[in-house]
């Protein structure tokens, strides 16, 4: 049985639901089953949001406790909020190099080094997806850049074989550009 569990975390408005859909569409383009559990409604207004992406031999919409293969955070603090799904032996964590203060009175926020310290038990990649998105001409394309990064570290192996499957799913030219630029960036990082 081949299964892949990717937990996407971030802040409402960052394009997390779209990111889940783009990954699942790439899977469907290859004839691989994919299920996504999305967060809709009020939490999309600058609140904490997560999306469960599962593919392969899966039936249930939610990832089991400690069973994420990848935990991807578009806002780095949100990785910490979703550690329930992660497990140091199994989970690879990918952080967008970006933090956002909650829009609350007197809110406290952690910086990247504090976040990384909390994640010291894990294998963690930090990636500048926002920079790539801006360079690609679409500040909202951070999600596409992160998909490119996941592809370059082999996250979809045994499930998605063709890079082209992502192009159709990414839809916008600027998304595809961000995806490709992420591959270049990843080469230098890895």
């Amino acid at each position, binding site marked *: 049985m081949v299964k892949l569990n990717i937990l996407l975390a971030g802040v409402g408005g960052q394009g997390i639901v779209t990111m889940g859909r783009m990954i699942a569409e790439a899977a469907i383009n290859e004839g691989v089953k994919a299920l996504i559990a999305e967060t809709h409604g009020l939490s999309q207004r600058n609140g904490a949001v997560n999306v469960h992406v599962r593919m*392969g031999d899966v039936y*249930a919409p939610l990832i089991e406790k400690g069973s994420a293969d990848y935990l991807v955070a578009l806002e780095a603090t949100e990785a910490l909020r979703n550690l329930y799904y992660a497990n140091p032996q199994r989970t690879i964590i990918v952080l967008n190099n970006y933090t956002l203060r909650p829009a609350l009175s007197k809110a406290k926020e952690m910086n990247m080094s504090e976040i990384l310290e909390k994640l010291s038990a894990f294998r963690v990649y930090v990636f500048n997806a926002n920079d790539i998105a801006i360079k690609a001409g679409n500040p909202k394309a951070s999600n596409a850049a992160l998909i490119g990064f996941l592809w370059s570290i082999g996250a979809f192996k045994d499930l998605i074989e063709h890079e082209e499957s992502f192009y159709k799913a990414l839809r916008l030219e600027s998304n595809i550009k961000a995806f490709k630029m992420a591959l270049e960036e990843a080469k230098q990082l890895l």
Partner: protein
Amino acid sequence: MLTLTKLRYLLLGNEAIAFGALSSGVYVAAGYPGTPSSDIIETLMKYGKDRYVEWSTNEKVAFETALGAAMMGARAMATMKHVGVNVIADALMSSSYSGVEGALVIVSADDPSMWSSQSEQDNRYYGLMALIPVLEPYDPQSAYDLTIKAFELSDSIKHPVMLRTTTRISHSRGPVELLPPKEPVNGKLIKNPQKYVLVPENARRNRVEQLKRWERIQEEVEKLNAVEEGDDKVVILASGLAYAYVKEIIEDMNLNPTVVRISTPVPIPKKTILNVVSNANKVLIVEELEPVVEMQVKELLYDNNIHVELHGKDYVSRIGELTLERVRSAVGKLYDIPITEPQVISVNPSPRPPALCAGCPHRSSFIDLKRGLALASLSNTFFSGDIGCYTLGVLPPFNEQDSALEMGSSLGVINGVYRATGQIPVAIIGDSTFFHAGLPALANAVYHNLPAIILVLDNRSTAMTGQQPSPSKEIDIAKVAEGLGVEFVKTFDPFDMKNAIKIISEAANWVKQNKKPAVIIAKRACAIDVLETLKGKELPVAEVDENKCTGCSICYDYFTCPAIIPLNNKKAKIDPLQCIGCGACVSVCPYNAISIKGKPPEGWEEAWLS
């Protein structure tokens, strides 16, 4: 590995339900927005141009619209979130007595774990109470298939049918294979008062007919459930979404029980279940929330004198949604297999609740209200809140929601608050909620001279559920209030803080003096709608003058616009990616340090204020 052979679409469960309705020839569909149900009507509006689809003022009107159409022989559907079914309960009971001519499907989208709701009530109970069959899918494909079955069942029995979905069906996306849409089935004028006028004589006859239809339904549901044969000594009954979790866990644990996939939790397929449990040594019932299937199975076993070890809610909690770990634990107990839970690390970063958007007029209304009431010496009041984005007024720095119970509660509750305490209360209600359930309570307030301040936040939209249209675009709330006999009615722009404070304090003083209700309307469009209207145009942006900013923190700590960010030196900075140039923060800064840079685009004023 599971591979997909045919052409499939990646659809949300809700989209699958909408396409299922189109493939069933639905002609009239109505709903009221509510998470997790809203995408069904939205999808029908997009793809069912040859059908009649509407957002009604509330669920009861939506249901009666569908009921009326089904009485005329059409195929009809009403959609709502679980608590919306409470609003239709009266009509629902009657529809089960009268039956229909065409087909009537009610979609109840339940919300286990209360992701966007005030309760996690299990609406399968409504089926037991109203004697209406309940169909329950387990993934987007089965949501599509069962929608078609629901229409077929309703049409063949001439009885309403409920399709019960949950957040993890409605808002899960998966591959769905679609059939082409079917020609819509419309109605013709049918008059049958003996059936539809529920005077006692007719109602008593209908009651007998209702139970006859219920017997036929019990026969019909046998076809809708499936048995996956395995070890006949161990049986797992899985209702709706529980099947997806059970299937994955038994594959993962390499177990081979007999699994009954229950698509009709109400009524349960008695013959199918009797057949499999007769040989079993152990039975586990997995269902989300309440023991609806479990109660019926226990009754069935008692009636048939079957004694078997049976587990249900003793192994699977009735609180919150199902998860793989919860089902694994239940199956482990059933087989006496010890389960070792993975060790997870827990970190609690500061909470990140949803926040009012940059440019949201509600934020300004809450600030204005506080200041206006202070000016009239009425700060110590009860803020009776309601359901909408503005429920976020419960959070600091606003703290202006002392209760928010259900749609329309703000206006009803203030009557009791005043009668019990003699203190003038404030009701805060949105425009869509005002039309949904506010009108009868406002009439009551006038009727009984209730001294209260009623603030309607008119953002021209049903915003929280995704900017569905609101009746306020067509019907002037001020005229409605005047028409109902409210003597003090004034409208203000919440961004014009000075005038807003003046009107709010005037209203408060008027209520004190006259001991009657006053209605004040804060009118300015939802910022998301404004952005949509002005899409593609360059927007102005706010700017902080560093020399004037003293770092007093009012803008980010007491106004809390997400686009205003504190710097390390406590001074404020505007995040140009989030700021939409609305200008609401300009009058908030006591040092005049914030200004707007850039010219507003054409159509700016109209987008915000029309």
